[in-house]
């Protein structure tokens, strides 16, 4: 899909004099000015560590502020309305940003630079965005864009960003080298919202908690290098949106494939009380470093 992002890099259209002034003021000042002027929200490309993957020395994230978080920020937009987004690269290397809808080219953001990009008007659904350079995507700086899913609390909205990780690849990217492309991909960690089970149960978006009779929507995005397939115990869900499998919209499913690069939205009606697992039914993905249970596993809890 070619959405003609027509991104606007403000630095590129500013006069050299203004650019020099802004450089002097500094990135933070520019961002604050931009946000105040245009009311945009921001994503900060940040580098840090991740307690759940001790073998991975460094990771990258898209945070909503300059405060480090292990979880990527989730963005929201209204359906059918174009908007802007400020991206601040606090990392020491350049990265390439894109709305991830099949694009192979993006916007390069140099270290310390700030970019304002256009987000096109999109229909209701779940989308992916983030870094598409090898290091950026390999270290996990990819997030979710929810369009038209905000509903003032009803239906309740949850989100699951799925990813698979090979810590050997991550170690290579962290050390500034590219992983050997001839090496087989052997993912050894699997996550929902950058959490691995049982920590997924501590994430209020990964753990779906509902009252009996409630309806919720779950926005799902697959940032990994492989397809995943979510099995819901206790419930069937209805596929509301999908960018890669539109033929499946309207299907009622207990086992939902989420293809590599896909964003989809499902609706769940909590018609029975209890605690029910949801997990990847590709069983290698319900492990942490090879040990079961772990990985891509969470729960739906329905109170009477």
């Amino acid at each position, binding site marked *: 899909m070619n959405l003609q992002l027509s991104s606007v890099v403000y630095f590129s259209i500013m006069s050299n004099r203004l650019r020099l002034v802004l450089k002097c003021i500094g990135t933070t000042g520019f961002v604050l000015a931009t946000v105040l002027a245009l009311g945009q929200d921001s994503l900060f490309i940040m580098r840090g560590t991740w307690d759940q993957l001790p073998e991975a020395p460094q990771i990258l994230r898209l945070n909503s502020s300059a405060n480090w978080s292990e979880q990527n920020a989730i963005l929201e937009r209204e359906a059918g309305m174009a908007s802007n987004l400020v991206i601040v690269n606090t990392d020491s290397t350049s990265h390439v940003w894109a709305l991830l809808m099949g694009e192979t080219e993006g916007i390069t953001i140099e270290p310390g630079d700030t970019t304002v990009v256009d987000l096109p008007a999109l229909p209701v659904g779940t989308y992916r965005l983030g870094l598409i350079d090898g290091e950026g995507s390999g270290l996990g700086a990819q997030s979710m864009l929810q369009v038209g899913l905000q509903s003032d609390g009803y239906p309740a909205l949850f989100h699951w960003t799925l990813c698979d990780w090979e810590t050997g690849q991550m170690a290579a990217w962290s050390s500034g080298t590219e992983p050997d492309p001839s090496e*087989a*991909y*052997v*993912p*050894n960690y699997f996550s929902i919202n950058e959490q691995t089970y049982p920590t997924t149960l501590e994430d209020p978006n990964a753990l779906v908690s509902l009252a009996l009779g409630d309806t919720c929507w779950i926005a799902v995005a697959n940032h990994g290098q*492989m*397809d995943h*397939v979510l*099995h819901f*115990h*206790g*419930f*069937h869900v209805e596929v509301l949106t999908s960018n890669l499998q539109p*033929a499946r919209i*309207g*299907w*009622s*499913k*207990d*086992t939902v*494939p989420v293809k590599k690069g896909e964003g989809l939205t499902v609706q769940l009606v909590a018609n*029975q*009380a*209890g*605690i*029910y*697992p949801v997990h990847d*039914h*590709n*069983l*290698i*993905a*319900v*492990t942490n*470093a*090879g*040990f*079961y*249970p772990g990985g891509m596993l969470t729960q739906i809890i329905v109170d009477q």
Partner: protein
Amino acid sequence: MSTVKHILRTVTLISTACLATSIHAQQQPPQLFSGMEGYTFLPDGTPVPIWGYGWVADGFITLPAPLLTYNEGESVQLNFTNPSPESHTIHLHGLDVDQANDGVPGTSFLVTTGDDATYSFDADYPGTFLYHCHVTTTLHLTMGMYGMVLVTRPDFTLYEGGPAYAEDVPLLFSDLEVATNLDPVGSYPFHDIRPDVFMINGESGSQLEAPERIVHFEPGQPLALRLGSMAYSRVVCQFPPELNATCYMSDGRPLPTPFEPNALEIYPGERFTVLVDPEPGWDGTLPCEFWSMVDETLESVENIHIRDAALTVEEPQFIGAMGYPNPTRECITWDDARQIEVWNAYGVPVADLRFERGVLDVAGWPVGTYVARIDGGRSVRFVVIG
């Protein structure tokens, strides 16, 4: 009995009998038992250890586990006995059972060694479902503890207002990694399991080319292919246009809009119900590709042979070889049989058979699995229950 003896006797048994799960719907098993000392056999005859479920307490298990069939609307009480040395459960995949009957350790009950349990649920929706052990799932399911569940309607329609069909054809895709099954304790870490045997109803390669594995049809009498996957792989069924296939259901629910599949993707845990009404005289295969979920390489292509029944006149034993009822308490009938030989599950011949006009009297026989060779040719499995 030593493991070696068990293998040898089972190999002997297999050499004279075809023990793979029938693709024809059987009478609902009254009880499931677990087992951890079973074997399946690769096309070259190599025995591979499996864990699984069976119908009888003598430890005889099959890959896949017995087909469970229920009627729509039935209140089901599925009894389960675990005589094996590890705890097990039954997760009724897709049947949306309540938490207590979900078969998940920690949130549902665990059936420990020597225990009996009953899983209770209502079969509210017709369709294709699965079941499997959910204890250390990466190991117990991988070792073979899985099977298919069909919920059907007596009027042979897929669902209320849905299309009619003539016969159910359960087709369960799965795979295994031989090294894991040979050494389950040493199978850690689980994330690097890479299957190397790819199966349809527990068989692969040349096993699927056996005459008794051919799916026969009569023109104008649609077959309901009940496709489900317990594989690690992504399965892609490549439907030839001559099959006139239409996909009506997925995961036990009607699709909003049925469609004619060309390449139907089936991910692990998914099910589809596809009606086929092949062209008269058609004799061909439905190729099923197994693709790696990790690196998208094509791992294997297994074929389902489908043939117009009118082309199989040279094999009269095909008709009536199933035997009924099966399982049985008193007697079992093969309509066209004139002569019969029977072995128990350990390959020991059963003497002094009471057999007359196609009816074998089994009253008083020990509970167990038996194999009958009919008229010196076709061999079939049957079960005697208490």
